[in-house]
């Protein structure tokens, strides 16, 4: 892992922990942003952790860009030495795969896709060595995911699959981004899944949709009354496949304010995870099943 610093204009510094994605790079980025937040440096206005990088925005009239850069470099050792473990939560997210709404949308933007003759799922299944979409879907929800970044728009989580690298699913982004994506679409690009928090443009492949609202600016949804954004970096997600009836039922519950996501508090230790992935995931699932 080689850390690279770059100015982003005169108001930002971008820090790349590593060119490639790994949970080690994620933890280093998160530790660096935590250390930066604790350092309470005058002039810092935004601290943004990402999958394998992070960014700080500052007022160069208060702290000069080069001075900001030096402050960040000082924090790198702290970040490097930080424990790669956290107390977090595992959340069950119901997904209606192969739903009619993302299907209608992906057919509308077929000419922007690598394989205009099929669907996003058929294509993802084929290039990842599955016989059919069902096999790919099973792999998509078999193991938990780790929220390694929140962003793009309004609380959208990027999720990284908690499996060995050789088992990671990978799909390219659309050739040209779509101008439309249904709200709460479960998408995929590179090695990341995401959940589109709002309707809008998007470049990730579309696999399904969740009835669970994850962004509510009015804060009317029962579990979003404290804050409008549901996800934060470090959350763990288990996708759970549902059919149309269950989708409709949960959607009604969310709207009526009676839906409570299934959540359990868990500890995540990267070293323990790397030593025994299947065992760690089994423990995570045990915690969720007990919730």
């Amino acid at each position, binding site marked *: 892992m080689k850390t690279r610093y770059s100015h982003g204009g005169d108001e930002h510094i971008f820090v790349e922990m590593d060119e490639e*994605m790994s949970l080690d790079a994620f933890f280093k980025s998160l530790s660096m942003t935590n250390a930066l937040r604790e350092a309470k440096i005058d002039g810092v206005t935004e601290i943004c952790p990402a999958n394998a990088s992070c960014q700080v925005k500052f007022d160069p009239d208060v702290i000069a860009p080069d001075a900001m850069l030096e402050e960040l470099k000082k924090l790198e050792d702290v970040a490097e030495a930080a424990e790669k473990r956290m107390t977090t939560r595992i959340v069950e997210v119901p997904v209606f795969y192969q739903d009619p709404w993302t299907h209608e949308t992906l057919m509308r933007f077929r000419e922007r896709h690598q394989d205009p003759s099929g669907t996003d799922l058929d294509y993802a299944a084929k290039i990842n060595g599955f016989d059919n979409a069902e096999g790919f879907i099973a792999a998509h929800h078999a193991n938990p995911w780790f929220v390694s970044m929140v962003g793009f728009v309004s609380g959208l989580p990027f999720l990284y699959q908690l499996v060995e690298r050789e088992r990671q699913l990978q799909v390219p982004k659309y050739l040209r981004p779509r101008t439309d994506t249904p709200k709460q679409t479960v998408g995929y*690009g590179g090695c990341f899944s995401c959940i589109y928090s709002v309707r809008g443009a998007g470049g990730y492949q579309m696999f399904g949709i969740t009835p669970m609202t994850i962004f509510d600016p009015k804060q009317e949804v029962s579990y979003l009354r404290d804050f409008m954004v549901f996800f934060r970096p470090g959350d763990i997600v288990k996708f759970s496949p549902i059919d149309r009836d269950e989708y409709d039922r949960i959607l009604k519950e969310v709207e009526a304010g009676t839906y409570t996501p299934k959540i359990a508090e868990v500890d995540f230790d990267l070293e323990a995870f790397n030593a025994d992935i299947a065992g760690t995931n089994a423990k995570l699932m045990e915690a969720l099943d007990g919730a």
Partner: protein
Amino acid sequence: MALEIRKPGLLTTIQDLGRPGYFHLGIPIGGAMDRLSLRAANRLVGNPEDAACLEAVFMGPELVVTEDTLLAVTGGEMPVKLDGAEVPTWTSFAAKKGQVLSFGYLTDGARIYIAVAGGIATEPMLGSRATYAIGALGGVDGRAVAAGDVLPVGDGAGTPGRTVPEALRRRPGRPAELRVLPGLYWHRITEASQKAFFDDEWSVAPEADRMGYRFRGGRPLEFVEREQPFGAGSDPSNIVDGCYPYGSIQVPGGTEPIVLHRDAVSGGGYFMIGAVISADMDLIGQLQPNVPVRFQRVDMDAALKARAERTAVLDEIRAATA
């Protein structure tokens, strides 16, 4: 006191200086595209510089004032009419209860700022009244203004006839010059492409909005060959999804640069070749589609000097409107 919207124009939104502090959740700072013009408009009517105004792009709205008040219009150049009679831009003027504010055709720039004494007093969300339509934050129920909206206005008082001298009204040149500090993933393109990017003349594409401005007309960028890092995606313009700075220039597929603006997406999977310096961000908000643009390479010293010059202009505006 209120403003009654009769015609909304093309896209008229309530904007202030935005909501910093939530970019790590994908909620951008937002606020006026051309901040200097918004600050000036507020000063002209005696408001704090960060009060909420109307930002109208390409076409002005038509509205009625419900009480005697003071107004000012800054930003791009568009004839301002009070009950049909033209009044000067960049100058505060009194409007009587029931008078109608309307606009002629845009002659320069892209966005105008309409300030009213007391400021627009809609409900702030996350510390700002700025409209962020994608996230349904601020504005009128999270959206742009529409015909029939009645916008509440706070208490305020000011002096008519205050004006910003012509020399302090900043406009893009032709071609517009946008100064860029190379960086971020600049090393991903070849030396020839690094040179071409600054040599070529670009023009603003029709896809230009509060989220970002797209440019076309320059040569496609060529990439330094590499094996794509794990998780980035297969296109050479892909990176492992990371944060995007405001003003950063991403070039999906190496073809059409996009400069992210006030309603930026906070991150994504396209490489960036650097960022437009903070001093030139306001100028982008005054660019219309199809206008020619050149990117000019600067270093950090030049970027900071330009920023200081912009602050000096703001101080002159403050002195002129005190």
